[in-house]
Structures are given as structure tokens and as C-alpha cells.
């Protein structure tokens, strides 16, 4: 059992959890993730480790409530427990030095990008960060990202904050500006990572993406997270989660990640119904 010691709502649907996990906290490195199962009937899902505090024995997750599991998690409060947390999983990010790097985050992917950006900055790289969100209220970690970036750019799809447009618009401008950017990290929704990879390819700029595939165990045992990279089958959990964006078959992964869309909707609807009833009863 893993206790939530702090919970903070960062944006509508996006919540930060600080969780007691004393074995994992000192071992976490940028790029690692955990598998969690919130309760007995729950699914195992992968979540990126955003931060940790070895002295306190805590880890930090930032999660967007999208499906049943993440919505159930959002209903938990400080002091409540998550049944299972296992990790750290996946290969840590190899931290380059002496590079000029563009770190591009989309939506809640910004949270996943944060520890990598911080590690790259700490290693002395020059960092241009681009954070993208649908609208102003969904922009997260702006001060934190500013602190670990040489320059921070923000884009919103609807123009409600800073630059109107997509992260790729901003990135293209930076690439064209001949700033000497020689590496790109992109983390966000699959279509965004695909767009970034497509954009950087003609510029021959090495582009790393972090793939959030469907997983069960997270230790290389099920093969559910298999992705095609450079024509070869890879398991995102143990071979990744980071891969060369120019080699990833995004279209295949987009299809695979929707494998259970219909069933996920059943779970979600069922949860909406029961949690609604609970709340009503709680009020009575």
C-alpha cells in the first residue's frame, strides 16, 4: 500500500500526487516510470515518474484523468492509498552533454518532459523548451520549466495564452533560426510526437520520443507494448520508453493504442455512473 501524502490540482483534470514509495524514491532517474494499480479490481497502468525525494521516500506523479483508472485516482485524497506501485521501470534517459536541445512537451506530456529537461539542463546543455496546451488553463509547470530552460516558449491551440498555434509551429521557427539545435526531445500525445518527428526529419536533427504504449506488467513479460522501431519489434517497457522518433512507426502505434477503445468506454461510463451515485448518496 502506497500512501498519497500530497495532492495538488494543477489544471482541470490534471493532478499532482506525491506518494510514499521509499524503495523507488532513491532509485528514480529521469525517463523512468512506474506501474500502478489503484485498487483490487483495477488495471495496471504505466505513469511517468516526474520527480522524487529520496530523503522523504516519496515520488511524484502528474496524471491527467482521462479514463477510468486515472479518474478513480483523482477521487483519492491525501492520506488515501494506492494499492500497488512498482518501479522504477524503463531505461533512464541517457543524459547528453554539450548540446543545444529543444525540449517539446504537449499537454500532460510536459510533466513527463520536466525531469528530462531538468537533467539535461543540470548536465550543462543549452535548453529551448516549448510547452504546448489546448488552452491557457491546461498549461502546467510553467515556472518549473522556466527554471530549467534557457528560453521557454508556450503555445496554446486556441491562442488563450502566449502564442496561438501548435508546438511544431514554434519548433519550426527555432529550427529555421539556425540556433544550432542538434537534438530534440518530444513528449506528448502520439499525434504530436509524430508531427514533431516529421518536422525534424528533413532538418536531420536527432529526435527522441517517449512512448506510452498499452502495458500490463511493465517488465517485458507480456509484449502488449510492442512497437515497430526501424522495422524491428521492440517492447516499450524494457527497450524504451524512449526511442528515435524518426524510426518509430507512429501510425501502427496509433492503431494499437486504440485496441480497447470500446471497452475503455464501457469502464468509463460504468465508473461515471457509480461515482455519481456515490457522490449523491454522500450528500444525502
Amino acid at each position, binding site marked *: 500500500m502506497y500512501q498519497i501524502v500530497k495532492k495538488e490540482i494543477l489544471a482541470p483534470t490534471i493532478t499532482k500526487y506525491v506518494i510514499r514509495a521509499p524503495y523507488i524514491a532513491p532509485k528514480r532517474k529521469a525517463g523512468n516510470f512506474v506501474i500502478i494499480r489503484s485498487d483490487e479490481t483495477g488495471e495496471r497502468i504505466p505513469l511517468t515518474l516526474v520527480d522524487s525525494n529520496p530523503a522523504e521516500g516519496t515520488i511524484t506523479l502528474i496524471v491527467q484523468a482521462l479514463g477510468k483508472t486515472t479518474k478513480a485516482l483523482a477521487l483519492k485524497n491525501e492520506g488515501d492509498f494506492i494499492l500497488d506501485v512498482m518501479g522504477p521501470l524503463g531505461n533512464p534517459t541517457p543524459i547528453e552533454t554539450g548540446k543545444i536541445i529543444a525540449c517539446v512537451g504537449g499537454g500532460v506530456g510536459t510533466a513527463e518532459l520536466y525531469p528530462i529537461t531538468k537533467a539535461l539542463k543540470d548536465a550543462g546543455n543549452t535548453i529551448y523548451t516549448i510547452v504546448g496546451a489546448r488552452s491557457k488553463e491546461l498549461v502546467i509547470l510553467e515556472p518549473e520549466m522556466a527554471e530549467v530552460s534557457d528560453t521557454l516558449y508556450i503555445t496554446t491551440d486556441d491562442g488563450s495564452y502566449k502564442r496561438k498555434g501548435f508546438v511544431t509551429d514554434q519548433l519550426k521557427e527555432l529550427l529555421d533560426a539556425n540556433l544550432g539545435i542538434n537534438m530534440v526531445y518530444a513528449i506528448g500525445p502520439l499525434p504530436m510526437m509524430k508531427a514533431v518527428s516529421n518536422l525534424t526529419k528533413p532538418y536531420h536533427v536527432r529526435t527522441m520520443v517517449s512512448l506510452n504504449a498499452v502495458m500490463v506488467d511493465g517488465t517485458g513479460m507480456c509484449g502488449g507494448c510492442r512497437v515497430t522501431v526501424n522495422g524491428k*519489434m521492440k517492447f516499450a517497457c524494457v527497450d524504451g520508453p524512449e526511442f528515435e522518433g524518426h524510426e518509430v512507426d507512429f501510425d501502427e502505434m496509433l492503431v494499437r493504442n486504440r485496441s480497447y477503445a470500446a471497452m475503455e468506454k464501457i469502464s468509463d461510463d460504468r465508473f461515471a455512473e457509480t461515482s455519481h451515485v456515490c457522490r449523491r448518496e454522500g450528500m444525502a
Partner: protein
Amino acid sequence: MMNTVNPMKPSQRMKLPRQSSIEQPADERRKNFTEVSFGVDEERALIEAARCLECQNPVCQEGCPVGIDIRSFVQLVYQKDYIGAVNKIRESNYLPAICGRVCPQEEQCEQVCILGKKHDPVAIGKLERFVADYELKHNLFSPPVIKEHREEKIAIVGSGPAGLTCAAELAKLGYQVTIFEALHAVGGVLRYGIPEFRLPRTILDLEAERIKALGVKIETNFLVGRTATIDEFFTEWGFHAIFLGTGAGTPQFMGIPGESLIGVYSANEFLTRVNLMKAYKFPEYDTPIKVGRSVAVIGGGNTAMDAVRTSKRLGAEHAYLIYRRSRKEMPARLEEVHHAEEEGIEFMMLTNPTRVVGDQNGIVCGIECQKMELGEPDESGRRKPVPSSEPTFVVEVQNVIEAVGQSPNPIIQSTTPGLKTGKKGIVVADDVQRTSREGIFAGGDLSRGGATVILAMRDGKVAAAEIHQFLQKKYH
């Protein structure tokens, strides 16, 4: 002369027929996950025990990988001392309720049974299960008394049959034992691989509780190699010896086109979703699984058999077992093949898949196959299947489940310097389960590739004895 307890003459004993298990009818059981076999009742158990010839030289014991004193336990059954019998088994095998269910007795103790030379062998496995179930039903388990307390700490990595057995043996000797399990539940392949209808989870939970009753600590959600490394276990955690029993959990794929289509599973994923995550209870449980009208399972081993029988239970009208060799070469247990047949599994022998066919949405809609013929024997001694001249054909299916072999998970090997590995990342262990590193022992599928539950248990037991020797020498 060893004593005998049965006054019947051998000729009388031989006239008694081998008793069969009481089973759920195939028509019913293919719709549920309840155990197929209910085992034998007391009446049948007593007849079965009376069939034993009480040989002066009981070869059955030699046929048992963990050396259970079979003759003595069967005699105790004959004398209706069922608890005495289960405790006799437990001296050599701490998991009788599991072994009585999943052990391939027909290739081991029962294969060498003298009665079996002219008649059917004694149903040793069924008797083992009977006494274990009797003890459970009457709640008569009491943990063995641990005579001595020893200070040395031992880490067991993996809670499958090898790890559980090694832990139990060392705890009985008085050592401080901790099991580390990566998943959230104990049992390893017994939990994620073997279906409920062959090994009910209540039985597995119970055997795990009995391990804990020996004072063994169990840490779940702990991935050794990541949460802590083997070297940290020695330097920071203060362990004196480590047993590795992490199994062969990495699924292999055939490498044919179409394996990324929706509806293709490794048997590991398919079985893990159903067994560990209880996807068969969706939406009560959140983990989904998609099983279409027709399912093809590729492979001929026990895992393939488990997967194909599971897909039938999940509602597949047609559940095909596609195997490239013939029936005779199938490595699966005969009993499981019979059960599968009774349940309506459709066997496609001498058939090799060449491609998974998908629709425009990336979803499986068929499997293209090639008929095979048997050629010259290969390195396994079995005749090698070679493609026939017949054209390929497509079978309409919505799922393809690959059960074509597993290899060890590489996480520990890659994070433990100096640990010697062989083919497919198998950890090299000698005949007493020592690895290339002092204080590190390994067994089960991790050091064997794919084997059986009982061989894993044998390794765990041998390793425990060797760890005891090692610690005695080093620290006393």
C-alpha cells in the same frame, strides 16, 4: 524388509481398477473458469491406495524430481491417516496441493510405477491432491516446527515454484528469508500463466500463506534489478545468499507479418490479462480482453493448451490449436490434450502460420497457413516439419495467440556483473544450482529455459540445500 500395511496379495491388488477423477462435464466447464477436475473422493482414494504394491525398492520415489517418499505416503492413505500422508509429502515437497494438480506424474513417478508395467500405474498424483485437499477441507494444516534459529539472511528473487520451494526449505532450516516478487501477487507462472480452471487461486493463495507461516517475508511490487540490484542486496541490504528464480517470462514471437495487428497476443499477455488481472470478469474488473468468434492459438505446449482452452471459455465458437508438427510431437501433457479435445478445441496439426491477415482498421481477420510434412529428425530428436507443396490457405479468425516459447527476462542478467549466461539469456547454473558468482544460486526456467513446475521445485530444493552448505562453510 520394509513393512507392508495392506494384507491383500499382489494379484488381488492388480485386479483393482485405477480410479479416475471426478470431473466437470465438458459442456459445462467450457463456459466457466471453475476447476475441471474435482479429484478423487475418499472411497476412490482408498481403492487407489490399495492398488500400491508397496515395492521393496520403490522406484516411484526415484522418478519424483523432489524425491517424495511415495510408498510411505500411499501407505498412510491406506491407513486413513491423511494428515500423516500430507505431512510425509511436505517433508520433500512443500506445495502438495499445487503439485497434485499440475505435476506431469505420467512422465515421472507414475511412469516408473511397477504396477504400470502390466496394468495402469497407481494414480499417485490424484492421491497427493486428495490428501492436500483433505487437509484444506478440514483445516488441519499446522506449520512444521522450526528447531533452530539462524541469523543469515537470504533473498529469493521471484515467487514462482522454484522460489517458493527454496524459501520454504530455507525457512524450515531456520534462516531469515525474504521473497521479492515483481508483480502485485505471489506465485509467478502459477499466478499469471496457469489458468484458474487448472489451479484455483484459492489453492495458490493458501500455499503462499503456508510459506508465510514459516516466517518467510514477501515483498511484492519489487523488481530486482531495478528497485534494487543484486549487488545492493549484498552490500546494502545485508543478504548472505541469493536465489534467482525469475523464470522465463519474455515471450517470443514468430516474426511473421501482421503480428502488430489488433487481436494478436502473446500467450503470456493473453493469460496474464485473464489469470492475474481477471479480464474474464470485465467490467467488474477493469482489465479488458478482446476475444472474437474464432481464435487461433499457435503452439503445441502446455501454454498453448492453456491459452486455447481459455479462449473457448471466453466465448470463442471456434478455438483452433495450430501446430507445425504432428500430434505425437506435441510437448503438452496428454491429460491437457484430452481435456482440450473434450471441450471442443479444433486441432490443426502439421500447419504453420505464415502471415496474420488484417482488415482496413488494423484488426485481425484471418491467419494464413501452410500445410507441413514431417522430414528428417532435427536436434530435438523429433522429425522436422517442412513445408508441403500445397498452396497456403486462410482461416478466418479474430484473434491470434502465440505460444511459441519464452526466454528468461534479461533485467537481472544485465544488472548483475559477472553473472554468466548462456543461450537466450539463460543463467548458467551447475548441478547444485550454483551460478558463476559466489553466493548467487539460480534454478527453474531461468536456468533451464522452459521446463515444468516440478523441475523448478526440484531446483529450488537442491539450491536450498546448497545454500545451507555454503552458509555453514562461510560463516561457521
